[in-house]
């Protein structure tokens, strides 16, 4: 926002009651994400929950490689930047040293479901008491829109220019359903951030996950089906609509595994 606009609206804001504040655990740094991208909201929800639970001083996060590689610029907590795909192994190392602190990894689909598949599955299989936040937008955003393991069939990317085919690239990978089969997974949920209602559901899921982590119940795994307007070559509105119509049938939102 340009200074001129701020000058105009700031006196107005000063007279208003602030009913929607930035969580303390989000830094003042301007997000580098593209307009309409789901990362910003997902960051906010995660930090909001950490604030509300009052656990910022006991929480250590792990950032991935991908668009959210700089997550630690925005999250005002101790964080480690992992190599591509290794976030859950790094989180395991942290958690084993600090079993009473809260540890989460924040990873995209290329990071978690391609190069980091082994680390992801074994971390969940050990039932590490961590939260894995998995942002699935079915594409490699950071590197310019290549095909991901979660890319839908017939979906166009720079490495599937005519659309993903089963013959050359196999099927969209439902890694969240896969990890839900593991006994180490205590709570598995699939959410989104494209509507206020969806945000409320995600917030509930993350709150539960931290509660379960406190009780040392096992791995909590939350997928956020998200968009990539730049990579999908759509406007933010088109992207959200396309996500609902095409992503949700393959990756349906809802709780996948809940404690008995």
């Amino acid at each position, binding site marked *: 926002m340009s200074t001129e606009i701020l000058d105009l609206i700031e006196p107005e804001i000063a007279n208003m009651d602030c009913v929607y504040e930035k969580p303390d655990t989000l830094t003042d740094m301007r997000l580098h994400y593209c307009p309409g991208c789901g990362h910003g909201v997902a960051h906010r929800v995660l930090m909001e929950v950490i604030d509300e639970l009052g656990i*910022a*001083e*006991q*929480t*250590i996060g*792990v*950032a991935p490689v991908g668009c959210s*590689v*700089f997550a*630690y610029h925005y*999250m*005002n*907590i*101790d*964080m*480690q*930047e*992992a*190599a591509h795909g*290794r976030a859950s*192994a*790094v*989180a*395991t*190392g*942290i*958690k*084993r*040293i*600090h079993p009473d*602190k809260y540890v989460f990894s924040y990873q995209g689909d290329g990071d978690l479901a391609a190069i980091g598949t*082994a*680390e992801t599955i*074994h971390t969940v299989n050990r039932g590490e008491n961590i939260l894995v936040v998995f942002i699935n937008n079915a594409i490699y955003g950071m590197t310019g829109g290549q095909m991901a393991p979660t890319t839908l069939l017939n979906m166009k990317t720079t490495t599937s220019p005519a659309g993903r085919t089963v013959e050359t690239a196999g099927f969209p990978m439902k890694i969240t359903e896969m990890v839900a089969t593991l006994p180490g997974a205590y709570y598995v949920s699939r959410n989104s951030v494209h509507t206020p209602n969806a945000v409320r559901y995600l917030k509930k899921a993350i709150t539960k996950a931290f509660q379960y982590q406190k009780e040392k119940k096992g791995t909590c795994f939350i997928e956020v089906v998200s968009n990539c307007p730049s990579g999908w070559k759509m406007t933010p509105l088109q992207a959200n609509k396309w996500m609902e119509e095409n992503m949700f049938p393959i990756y349906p939102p809802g709780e996948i595994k809940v404690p008995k």
Partner: protein
Amino acid sequence: MSNDNIKLMKGNEALAEAAIRAGCQAYFGYPITPQSEILEYLTDEGRKRGMIVLQAESEVASINMVYGASGAGARVMTSSSSPGISLMQEGLSYIACGELPCLVVNVNRGGPGLGTIQPSQGDYFQATKGGGHGDYRLIVLAPASVQEMADFVFDGFDLADKYRNPVMILTDGALGQMMEKVEFREYDPKDHTPVKPWATTGKPADRPRNIITSLHIQPEKMEEINLHLQAKYRKISETEVRYELMDADDAEFIIVAYGLVARIAHRAVELAREQGIRVGLLRPQTLYPFPSKALTGLAERIQGVLTVEMNAGQMVEDVRLAVEGRVPVEFYGRMGGIIPSPEEIVKALDKLIRKNVAQTAEAY
């Protein structure tokens, strides 16, 4: 009277026992011959004595758990053998850039590829020149006895903390498997626990957040980090070189060898001296930093150098860089997991001497 500090142990077990005594808080590892005793010993004995021991799904996971645990402020280690160490190179590069202290043990076996489980020194380049991508160095310690397998664990952890740098113990399958007497030093980890204000332990309200990262997108910032790392490596090179010099006072020739080979080479020195050959031995205990200055100094007063290794000739390149053409440098090596005999080394020495005599005659 029994002394709890003196034991008869396998090299790998002595190393693992030393890790417990050095206050190593966590070990992450994966089975591979010939180093699995480390994982096994720590799983049993280490856990009993309070160590966190996790058998990971791969060496890739192990080294990244080390990254996380070291970043979280703990004294940590992993161990593996050559193919597994190759898998760790990515993680080591991140650890080096993130300046995380840790100890990594490579019980070197023969390669390339799956190779052989027999001893080798084929990983010298990988260990001493960085190993992974980017400009970085590990501090590399090369034990030559079961005693040093234990000693270098204590030293390795201390060096790692002192410089916030990964330290590698580069040993081999024979040293790992053979049994010798070992005396563990008096060492109270409490006296060796530095404050780690940089660790990710959870951010209290009164300090800025701690971030462990190796990502520096701005070229100027990245170069600043590079220069900082290089300055650190220079300081390590100036302060931490360790080597042993044997029978060198009157030596006309010097054998350079490390680890197991140095012990065999020492026997070769004895045999050669019985034949009247005045030869000494330089045994680097740190491979990085390499004892270049000591070798440069020696080159001023000797007639030739023989480097002996269990590889195709790797350390010999550092020897040549140190000698800088002052005297001839010859190499003798065995590969494939074969250990050279003292007699073979004497023969190689004879060859160097004959060549030297011929060259001297030519000069007249």
